[in-house]
């Protein structure tokens, strides 16, 4: 690998692995030639939409769907289906997909789960092909931060294409306040944290609580064990409380009553919400009386959505939010134990840019250009999704996601768009390195290499440009490609473990034996300790 040619303190190989999903053949050399800063600034301002190569890969992609005909005796009126189908839900507005949940007698359950599988597939394809991998990594980050579980809820599954396309993706490097409201009014979040059914009288506290604890101020700012009344919280008399207590959660829950989804629910008497799956504000369900959130008074009978928006203003601009979210960003991009100085610097930039349209990009840039980032090579775990995308990127594999692959990624600890807990996936290496997860990680590398799940043929000889290299050269090539270095002991472990003679060709050129051994050598390189981290 052309690592040595890099003049920036950040190695090209490392940058592509940490800020993206691995180096495609030739990509590290290209980045090194152009320079890390140039690459980074380009990554932070991606043009909207997919680059042409990625768009093509998405257009070419197909995913099997198969189900039996419905039983008319049970009022199930649909035909049997067994076909390879393009990823057609990705571009659909929610009202085009909502009938699968609204008219259950006309659609098999597979159609309700289909948008979830398509979004997972698209996410994988983008990570493999994208010329803007940092955007993909940031979408990944915000999907964890604003976690929804589409495996557990058909409504969330059907809302996932719009959640990914219209909420997370356009805002992933943008402004946090804007992203926050986009999430708050999304069908996926309104269902996941049950705000869609929240009504004046006894509001549903689920969203209000997680808004404070998980989306904005964070649990360090939850001071319920110290203070019973809002005015006792330090700073509250001056209108700047340092944290929040249950009273803030309750009042916030009241503020969001009536923020709901057009899902056919009866409003009163003869009136019903339409069945479109889109956001709706229902005045009748809203608690319009005065509220107090974070020591700020919200007067009674505000215009539509005004008090909910006021709460979003208050939490988005709170110093604890800057600290909480920046800590998470540094943890993701730099180290499980975020260096305090870097968190402080990132927090300052966040707070100086509360209204900037590129607030998040500015913070990410500062983190990526810090000495702490440059010094952090190899300390983060490569998460199962990144392991798969990285194998495909580096191995030149035109990955076609399939359900067995998706299930094995889940078994390795990362059920995509489906962490069952609103915290989102843990961001520490211990979570991913247990016995069960390690076993699934090795299985992922081997299964991709051997095309065990119909994800596409892997052609290592084509990537190497050599049909029958020596066993030692092949092992060195793939270890360097996947881990950035060809440690002789690791080379020997592969060659000796396979019972090969180091200097001899892996087999007669262009024979199945030679190809099979090359596939295994590459798989073992991806199963090595060096590819478990980034």
């Amino acid at each position, binding site marked *: 690998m052309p690592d040595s040619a890099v003049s920036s303190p950040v190695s090209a190989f490392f940058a592509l692995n940490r800020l993206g999903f691995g180096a495609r053949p030739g990509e590290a050399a290209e980045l090194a030639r152009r320079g890390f800063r140039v690459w980074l600034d380009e990554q932070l301002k991606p043009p909207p939409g997919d680059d042409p190569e990625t768009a093509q890969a998405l257009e070419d992609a197909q995913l099997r769907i198969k189900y039996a005909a419905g039983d008319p005796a049970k009022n199930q009126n649909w035909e049997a289906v067994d076909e390879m189908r393009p990823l057609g839900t990705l571009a659909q507005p929610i009202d085009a997909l909502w009938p699968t949940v609204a008219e259950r007698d006309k659609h098999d359950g597979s159609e309700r789960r289909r948008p979830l599988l398509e979004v997972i597939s698209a996410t994988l394809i983008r990570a493999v092909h994208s010329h803007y991998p940092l955007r993909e990594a940031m979408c990944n980050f915000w999907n964890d931060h604003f976690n929804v579980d589409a495996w557990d809820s058909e409504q969330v599954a059907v809302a996932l294409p719009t959640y990914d396309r219209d909420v997370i993706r356009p805002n992933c490097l943008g402004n946090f306040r804007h992203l926050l409201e986009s999430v708050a009014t999304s069908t996926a979040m309104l269902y996941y944290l049950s705000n869609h059914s929240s009504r004046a009288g006894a509001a549903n506290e689920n969203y209000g609580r997680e808004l404070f604890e998980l989306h904005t101020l964070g*649990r360090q700012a939850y001071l319920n*064990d110290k203070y*019973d009344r809002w005015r006792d919280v330090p700073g509250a008399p001056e209108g700047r409380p340092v944290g929040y207590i249950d009273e803030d959660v309750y009042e916030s829950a009241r503020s969001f009553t009536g923020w709901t989804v057009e899902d056919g629910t009866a409003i009163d008497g003869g009136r019903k919400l339409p069945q479109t799956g889109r956001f709706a504000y229902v005045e009748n369900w809203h608690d319009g009386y005065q509220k107090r959130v974070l020591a700020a008074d919200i007067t009674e009978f505000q215009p539509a959505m005004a008090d909910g928006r006021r709460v979003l203003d208050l939490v988005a601009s709170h110093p604890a939010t800057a600290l909480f979210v920046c800590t998470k960003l540094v943890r993701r991009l730099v180290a499980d134990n975020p260096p305090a100085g870097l968190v402080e610097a990132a927090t300052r930039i966040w707070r100086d840019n509360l209204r900037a349209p590129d607030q998040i990009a500015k913070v990410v840039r500062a983190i990526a250009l810090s000495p702490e980032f440059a010094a952090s090579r190899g300390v983060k775990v490569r998460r199962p999704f990144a392991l798969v995308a990285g194998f495909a990127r580096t191995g030149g594999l035109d990955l076609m996601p399939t359900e067995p692959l998706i299930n094995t990624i889940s078994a390795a600890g990362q059920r995509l768009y489906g962490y069952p807990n609103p915290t989102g996936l843990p961001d520490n*290496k211990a979570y*991913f390195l247990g016995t069960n997860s390690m*076993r699934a990680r*090795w299985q992922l590398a081997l299964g991709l290499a051997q095309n065990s799940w119909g994800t596409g043929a892997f052609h290592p000889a084509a990537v190497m440009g050599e049909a029958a290299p020596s066993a030692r050269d092949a092992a060195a090539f793939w270890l360097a490609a996947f881990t950035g270095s060809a440690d002789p002991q690791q080379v020997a472990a592969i060659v000796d*473990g396979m019972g090969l003679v180091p200097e001899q060709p892996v087999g007669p050129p262009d024979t199945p034996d030679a190809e099979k051994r090359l596939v295994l050598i590459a798989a*073992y390189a991806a199963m090595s*300790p060096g590819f478990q981290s980034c």
Partner: protein
Amino acid sequence: MLLSRRTLLQSAALASGLVPVPGLVLRAFAGPGAEKPILIVVHLRGGADGLNLVSPATDPVFIAARSTDLRVAADGPDAGYALAGSPDPNTEFRLHAAAGGLSELYGSGQLAFIHAAGLTDSTRSHFVATDMIERGVADARGLTRIRDGWLTRYLAHERAIGIAAVSAAGSVSGELLGRADALAVPDLGGGLAPAGGPQAREVLTGLYATRRDVFTAAGREALGAMTTIDSHVPRDDKGAVIAYQPDPGTAYESAAEFGRPLKALAQLIKMDLGLEVATVDIGGWDTHEYQAGRFKAAVGRLSNGLAAFWNDMQRYHDRMIVVTVSEFGRRLRSNRSNGTDHGRANVMMVLGGQVDGGRFHGGWPGLASDKLDEGVDLAVVTDYRQVLTEILQNRVKKPVAGVFPDYAFSGDLGIFSV
């Protein structure tokens, strides 16, 4: 084939389960005779509605606070199971109608309830409460100071050999934080050997032999544990795993997805590899809306699962204790989504061959408004650490210290008859 002679010898040895592979850290296992007590912690994740599970069914305050489908009926076709030994002479307690399995265990005298138990801290955050319960502390200061799990500290008291600590889940539970050799085993249906056969195992052993970083250490640990356990998974002469046969009458499938980890745990226990503590999770309890159907399903899984597991573990009853924990209970009054929000105290269950069951232990504060926590929730009258301490002391028949820092044990509740 290019298999080396060494590989062939090793695979033969592994198949017989006898000879360790050089370079692998194989666990010594206890073998017959070392019959230590087994403690299993069942975590009801999400905050279970204890008031609707072990329910003060005839309390007028409770009846007024809940719609009919969010409480257990005392009569009629949906009536719950009547429970002897109410903690309140004026109130009849009943088990949820989907908890037939638990009702039988209670009736047989092996299952006891401790109601109004939980954290003394007032947090209503899932994640703070879960962290506290898993680490065995009860305040924010404890969380900053204490970084390991209470089961980890407990196990440190004695020398554990073999596979001592397991989470029957995809990852190791917080109770075992800091226990380097704790395993996560959610399923044994396909055995536990690495994919790729003996050659892959040999290559992996080499790849993970020399380096010293945490990733290498994790791989080495995983390989050793996988090999130890997999060598006890029965296989046919073609190498295919022979499906696990539980004791007759055991229906893990009746517990849906909760059955799978329980089955893996039972299989592991029967391998007699020295298991001392295990954790298992059951989710689906965070019922902020549409609670009735979801809660009924969750109770069914819990009840059927524990009943199946207990049936399968006949031979181990005398040395086994199962305890349930949940981070908090739920609000007395239901919300307008026909659900319940985060509350405070909950019911803990203790199941075991030596449990003084068929009754409640500990107090019951009642639901009068002046008895409620912050005016809204069932108050905690039994510190969850009191229950856990009593269990640990019964297990080793001597006082234990240091497992719950800053907690002074206030004496036995009388959960055990032996």
